[in-house]
């Protein structure tokens, strides 16, 4: 099998090499990689030379990304060798790869949206990049080089897609790499930015960098590439100097294959009755789309990936908003009707097509359940009959209708998705990449079914990145580029070269430049910028806290007495430290429910050692044991979450209950009075301000500094912001999470020491409430519940405000009802306000 493949490859390969090339930087020899049986790369041998731009061409799924991921060490090849400057560097990992001087700009930028532009640079690049010229100046220079003119402290979620790509490029270029991989870098860039990029690439080339340029666009290849390699179906189709190959030859290499098998008969009627019509359709990423479908015709949508086809399909399926008109059988449909009439076959079968927990039958009937029911109660017999019927006509091969959907082959899963569409008796069918991940045999059956549906009068619209498929299946093909239709092909015009040609040769002049968002200046601008920062909640919290204090003072003048103020501050200190810990958990996108019982448990431990009359060493031993217990709890939480597949809430809830039990095992009631000397020391105050509170503020400030100015802080926010991007920029995910949960527990340990002074006795029932208290304080403080952004200062203020409110309840002579009521009200209102204020623009 392998032998044959080898033979075939070498006969097909066009290998023209006449000019003695420069020094080889990367040499890949016979590299193969398979994913669960599917050959992504087969025996690829390719060399990348210093001082050259080497373009990689190929359709979707040709193996380009796999090749790239092997070079960056993200994937390990199954067989074959990878040499860097003549040395065998296998096995390669992302860290080693970047140490060798390989850098990459991803097609989907690995940008952390919760962090600022500058922080994105800092977390992704090694510290020494910034050493010589200083932080801001270096960052400014890096951005200037790619023409990205935005404030350094701007949050990256506010950047446009094009600006994010520029930032991604800036990161890749910052290291003066020996090898630079650019994956579809111009997909969202306008003309100026593209020219800038090309200038930078030529510049790097002149300095000896080997540039690997992955693209779909022939026009770009002509401008920039010295050498080109074409991949198809995981195999190398040829490698040649760009100057010695014509566009036509390249297209032939990209498309290549001749399909022997027969497609179903196309529509014979040259001008059939129009039954589906789209006019001036405009939506996210596409504009002014217009086409019509005649009875018995199948319409194909073509184009290079990411040119608006997917969004168009989703809009036609009623999943995205649109403007314009969509007519079915001559009647214009409203957005609501569209949702009802459309049957959508998504391209991403795993995330949108099937529910893996459900059976084959359940997957097939989910859109048509009401058809088998009387009065809302299903007739299982009726459902089974219908499923059998449609499965027979679509030739679905499954061991049983009750089999798990994932036990079926890709083709049969797709047929189940089609069955669902047909069972719902739709007005029209929107099929996005209907044969992706489907074996050849099933492909033709899917074509046959689509044709039958179309013949029966149901309009069918197919999006495909496979030109051969569109040629064989469709009566009309609409080619899109940058969200607009650039060509409509009919009848004999529908050939693979015409489709691919129209898509890739689409003139770059149709670029529409994305408008940069408001970059005004002045007070309004500064204000908006401040509101966007993590610490913006400090202002409203302070105002609320002061107003509340004044109100209660007006009601009862003892409220602001020195005694009560210091009392509030002492109470807020224990809560504050625990809440600082909770902030870390939320920053990581998790939560730690175990902090309350942990604090209580630690106090119980302490109550056996820290008593009057005990030697100082015994007391010290008590504190050490408390510290160790906290450390252990944090470690267990972290490990359960990262290695045990526990959700943070399940892990910490288990820990919550377990610790509570441990406290009761150690003491069945209050006992073990804490030494007065210790309590006095812990509650020592200057005027009415306890030292401990000052310490809390100090911790919060240090925490802020760590969070915003140091690598561990950025990494913490990076994993909370977007785990996948953090992984790609080289953050050690597991280590960061576990260290984070340990930090939560250690801050709880400090909180527990304060709690010990506060309650003065080892009571197993105490502490539990601090879980709720800490979450309330953190939410009030304004830390995001989705992770990635938060504030320690806000948390301290939140703890203070919460304590103030609870204290006020007793001062105003209100019952416990109010104590609970206020706390619940505070947390919910704060969560609602903040989450509404921060809803991301795309959602």
């Amino acid at each position, binding site marked *: 099998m392998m032998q044959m493949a080898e033979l075939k490859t070498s006969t097909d390969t066009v290998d023209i090499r006449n000019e003695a090339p420069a020094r080889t930087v990367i040499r890949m020899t016979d590299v193969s990689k398979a994913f669960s049986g599917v050959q992504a790369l087969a025996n690829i041998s390719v060399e990348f030379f210093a001082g050259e731009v080497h373009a990689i061409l190929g359709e979707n799924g040709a193996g380009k990304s796999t090749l790239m991921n092997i070079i960056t060490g993200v994937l390990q090849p199954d067989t074959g060798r990878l040499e860097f400057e003549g040395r065998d560097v296998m096995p390669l990992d992302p860290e080693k790869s970047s140490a060798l001087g390989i850098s990459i700009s991803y097609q989907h930028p690995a940008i952390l949206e919760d962090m600022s532009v500058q922080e994105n640079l800092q977390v992704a690049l090694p510290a020494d990049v910034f050493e010589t010229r200083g932080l801001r100046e270096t960052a400014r220079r890096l951005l200037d080089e790619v023409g990205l003119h935005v404030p350094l402290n701007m949050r990256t979620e506010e950047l446009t897609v094009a600006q994010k790509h520029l930032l991604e490029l800036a990161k890749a270029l910052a290291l003066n790499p020996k090898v630079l991989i650019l994956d579809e870098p111009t997909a969202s860039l306008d003309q100026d930015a593209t020219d800038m990029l090309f200038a930078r690439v030529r510049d790097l080339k002149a300095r000896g960098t080997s540039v690997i340029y992955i693209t779909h666009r022939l026009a770009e290849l002509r401008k920039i590439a010295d050498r080109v390699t074409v991949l198809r179906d995981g195999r190398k189709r040829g490698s040649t100097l760009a100057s010695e190959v014509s566009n036509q030859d390249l297209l032939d290499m990209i498309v290549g294959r001749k399909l022997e098998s027969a497609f179903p008969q196309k529509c014979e009627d040259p001008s059939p009755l129009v039954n589906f019509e789209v006019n001036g359709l405009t939506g996210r990423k596409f504009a002014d789309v217009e086409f019509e479908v005649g009875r018995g015709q199948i319409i194909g949508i073509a184009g290079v990936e990411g040119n608006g086809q997917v969004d168009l399909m989703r809009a036609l399926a009623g999943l995205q908003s649109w403007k314009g008109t969509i007519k079915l059988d001559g009647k214009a449909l409203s957005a609501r009707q569209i949702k009802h009439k459309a049957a959508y076959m998504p391209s991403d079968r795993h995330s949108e097509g099937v529910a893996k927990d459900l059976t084959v039958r359940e997957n097939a009937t989910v859109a048509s359940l009401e058809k088998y029911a009387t009065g809302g*109660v*299903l007739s299982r017999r009726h459902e089974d009959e219908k499923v059998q019927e449609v499965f027979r006509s679509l030739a679905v091969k499954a061991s049983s209708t009750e089999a798990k959907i994932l036990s079926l082959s890709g083709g049969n899963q797709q047929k189940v998705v089609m069955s669902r569409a047909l069972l719902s008796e739709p007005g029209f069918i929107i099929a996005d990449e209907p044969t992706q991940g489907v074996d050849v045999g099933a492909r033709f059956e899917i074509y046959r079914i689509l044709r039958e549906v179309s013949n029966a009068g149901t309009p069918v619209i197919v999006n495909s990145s496979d030109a051969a498929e569109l040629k064989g299946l469709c009566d009309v093909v609409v080619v899109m580029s940058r969200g607009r239709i650039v060509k409509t092909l009919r009848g004999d015009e529908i050939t693979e070269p015409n489709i691919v040609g129209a898509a890739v040769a689409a003139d770059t002049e149709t670029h529409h430049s994305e408008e940069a968002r408001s970059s005004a200046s002045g007070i309004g601008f500064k204000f908006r910028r401040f509101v966007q920062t993590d610490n913006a909640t400090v202002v409203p919290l302070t105002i609320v806290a002061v107003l509340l204090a004044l109100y209660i003072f007006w009601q009862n003048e003892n409220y602001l007495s020195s005694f009560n103020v210091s009392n509030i501050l002492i109470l807020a200190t224990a809560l504050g430290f625990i809440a600082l810990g909770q902030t870390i958990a939320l920053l990581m996108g998790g939560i730690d429910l175990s902090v309350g019982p942990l604090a209580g448990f630690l106090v119980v431990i302490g109550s056996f050692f820290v008593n009057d009359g005990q030697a100082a060493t015994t007391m010290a031993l008590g504190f050490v044991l408390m510290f160790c217990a906290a450390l252990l709890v944090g470690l267990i939480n972290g490990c359960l979450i990262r290695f045990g597949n526990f959700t943070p809430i399940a892990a910490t809830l288990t820990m919550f209950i377990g610790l509570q039990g441990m406290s009761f095992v150690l003491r069945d009631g209050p006992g073990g009075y804490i030494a007065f000397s210790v309590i006095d020391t812990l509650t020592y105050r200057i005027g009415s301000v306890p030292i401990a509170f000052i310490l809390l503020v100090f911790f919060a400030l240090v925490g802020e500094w760590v969070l915003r100015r140091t690598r561990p802080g950025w990494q913490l926010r990076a994993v909370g912001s977007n785990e996948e991007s953090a992984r790609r920029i080289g953050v050690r995910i597991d280590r960061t999470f576990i260290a984070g949960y340990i930090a939560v527990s250690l801050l709880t340990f400090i909180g527990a020491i304060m709690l010990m002074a506060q309650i003065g006795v080892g009571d197993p029932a105490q502490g539990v409430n601090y879980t709720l208290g800490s979450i309330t304080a953190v939410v009030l403080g304004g830390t995001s519940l989705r992770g990635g952004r938060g504030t320690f200062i806000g948390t301290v203020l939140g703890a203070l405000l919460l304590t103030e409110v609870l204290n006020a309840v007793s001062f105003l002579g209100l019952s416990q009802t109010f104590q609970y009521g206020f706390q619940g009200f505070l947390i919910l209102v704060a969560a609602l306000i903040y989450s509404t204020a921060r809803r991301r623009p795309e959602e």
Partner: protein
Amino acid sequence: MTQARNVDTGKAMRMGGGMALSKGFVTIVVSTIALIVLCFIFAPSAVTAGSLMGSLPFAAVLAIVGLGQMLVVQQGGFDLSVPGGVSLAVVIATHTANGNDTLLLNAVLFAFGCALLAGVLNGLMVAIFKLNAIVATIGMNTLLFGAVFAVSGGVPRITTDLLAEIAGARTFGIPNSVFFGLAILTLVSFVMKRTVAGRRFEAIGANPQMARTVGLRVEVYEGMAYVMAQLLYCTAGILIAGITREPTAFQGNSLLLPSVAVVALAGVSLLGGRGFPISVVVAAFFLNQLSQFALSIGIPYSAQTIVQALALVFGIGVYSIDWAGRFKNTNQRSTEEENHGNQTA
């Protein structure tokens, strides 16, 4: 050719009638039987008729609460308002009725009204306003305890005779609460497996994105999970009020972890998806019996929660760790990244 294959397919396809047993069901039933055997060997006192009659009502209560938690977990949520919901029902049933049988109906209706309100608010916050389920339900739990204090002032009160009779008495020698539990199990199973709404509910839990592409109203079903859950907690609370002579105002506190534990033990993924009502009820019996067993062999009452916590770790450990594929993870992740990488952006 095509014809021939079609016929084959038709024949090959079994008409499954729900015969396939879920992994969760098998696991929990086997564990329960093993536990009963252990009880007979090491702690015969835990399986006497008298001890079972005493503990079964609590298993029934846990089963009902567990079913509520299951609905929320199926939608990928988490309900921390169990203690508040249960406790509020308890105090309303005891305080509002105040020992007077004629007021019992009012009290029960009032309790359900409160549960409905709490459930709707939870549902709105989570499904419509997209609040983090943990924060929303933790906040709601606090508000519910505020209501508990408003109703009871935090002090217990003796339950009415009528409620004690309805919930606490026995019929055919079996505690009534067990019948309540079974009736609710039947109802939940029927709705979930045999009605359009139930099947849609499961499909949405299994894959909300898919459900959206076929036009289901995901938010409504997600929100309804919280409403139904509160109604079940309320039912459980009223039963507790009947079973216990003088229930405290914090009766629900001890039910939070067990409610999660039974859901996990039943094999319901904590990330959402398919629900297994029967397994949840068996798991409730299992957990209850485990406590009895632990008590009988001399583990102190104070350590009970540790036993529960270990059971939960065991439950999640069995189902959520992909033992076989543990070491292939990295590879798969990269594959997915390539194929489906950022299509959801």
